[in-house]
């Protein structure tokens, strides 16, 4: 059982603010995954559901002023993006030398997500056989919006005031951004809660940018320091992970763990809502949805 933030109704929100769900499983580096040859079997194994494959590489350029005035270019290992569609993808698998990830901007239900994850892990174990998972994480990014929010202070009517804190106060000047990060530890598991009002640039283009950052493990909000307009959105980025080793072929144990993470996140999500926001998201009892 993961962290529990209190009881809540078992509902599905018609206006769910979920932007991205991503599960990342890290393993010790498998260097054959640097090349097409090493990825061929895995790609073939999942091609029926994810037919589009492309290689992404990122280079970081750093300028050092002191002492050498040098320019450093760091080439990161390739990430293989294997998706169900070229542009408008709904599901995407990412494979790199040390991780596999499954992500989607939206899912029908969490069982669907877990079933896809199990399938990906089954193929990964048979074609790459990476050994034990050294870190397993689930990340859910929500982006709240409400027509009655005209300034960041208005969020106090819709989200828990403890979360809004200073951003909910009347402050001189214009609020550019307000972001908080809370780490909760539970044995070898940890929940990181990042939340707040991002600058407008962080929301444009919303989910694509977030997905890129989710993979790299960076903070969700790309703080554009030159942007001086505040967004009227509120981001809630939940990242639950463990460093307990799991055998990748034990897909059932991993999916059970991910479900626990998800339940805890849902519990926090409900905790964060004020009654007006809850109502506005249009909750529907889950058993009525499945009917």
């Amino acid at each position, binding site marked *: 059982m993961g962290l529990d933030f209190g009881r809540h109704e078992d509902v599905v929100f018609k206006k769910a603010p979920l932007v991205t769900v991503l599960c990342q499983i890290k393993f010790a580096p498998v260097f*054959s995954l640097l090349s097409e040859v*090493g990825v061929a079997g*895995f790609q073939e194994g999942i091609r029926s559901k994810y037919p589009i494959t492309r290689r992404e590489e990122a280079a970081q350029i750093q300028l050092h002023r002191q002492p050498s005035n040098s320019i450093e270019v760091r080439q990161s290992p390739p990430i293989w993006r294997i998706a169900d569609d070229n542009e408008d993808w709904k599901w995407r698998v990412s494979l790199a030398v040390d991780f596999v990830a499954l992500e989607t901007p939206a899912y029908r239900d969490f069982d669907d997500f877990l079933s896809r994850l199990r399938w990906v892990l089954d193929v990964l174990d048979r074609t790459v*056989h990476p050994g034990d998972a050294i870190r397993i994480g689930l990340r859910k990014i929500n982006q709240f919006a409400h027509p009655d929010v005209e300034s960041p202070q208005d969020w106090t009517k819709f989200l828990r005031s403890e979360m809004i804190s200073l951003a909910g106060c009347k402050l001189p000047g214009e609020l550019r951004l307000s972001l908080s990060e809370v780490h909760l530890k539970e044995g070898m598991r940890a929940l990181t809660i990042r939340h707040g009002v991002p600058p407008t640039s962080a929301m444009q283009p919303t989910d694509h940018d977030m997905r890129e950052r989710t993979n790299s493990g960076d903070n969700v909000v790309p703080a554009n320091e030159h942007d001086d307009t505040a967004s009227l959105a509120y981001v809630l980025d939940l990242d639950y992970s463990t460093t307990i080793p799991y055998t990748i072929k034990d897909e059932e144990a991993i999916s059970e763990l991910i479900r626990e993470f998800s339940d805890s996140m849902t519990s926090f999500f409900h905790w964060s809502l004020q009654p007006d926001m809850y109502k506005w998201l249009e909750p529907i009892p889950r058993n009525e949805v499945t009917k």
Partner: protein
Amino acid sequence: MTVSDAKPRYGGARRGLPDWADVAGSTNPGVPLLPLELELSLLSDSTDADRAEIAVEAGVRKLENLLRSAQALDRMVSLSVLLAGLQGCSFDEAALLIGREPPILEKFVRGEATVPERVMNRVRRLDEVLRNLHKVLEPTATAKWLRTSIPSLGNESPLNAISKGNLRKVEELTRGYCAPVVHS
């Protein structure tokens, strides 16, 4: 001495090189082509026959290395594509089918060891079994079929039969799945 005389004198590729399957694992897949082109261009300008034949020999060796590397990569891809088709099977079951211990299979799929010809032969035969099977059965049912006892295999499962060295019986069985049925 002409250029064509030079090759037999130095032995070229035939000079005591082991079978490529034994050395391919240590070859560098990234052998660049440029040095060979340079050497061939030097060859055309050279008036020294000895230098020319050395250049030819080096070029031939590089081409052979490239070929070995390409074949080694091709084998690795063929093996991993076969593994991908074994839907629902564990890695250990796949190793049983391939006829190698799991740690050895792991080295093959990671490119840490070259897939030998004997294993490749088995890979090709298993590939045919799967292709025939998938003409009559959904690929998702592969693992279930492999674990099911079949009367024509002496009530053994295909997995057991293959692991006991009876791949030929399984090949015949799956060819039979695709054979046209004659009604009298």
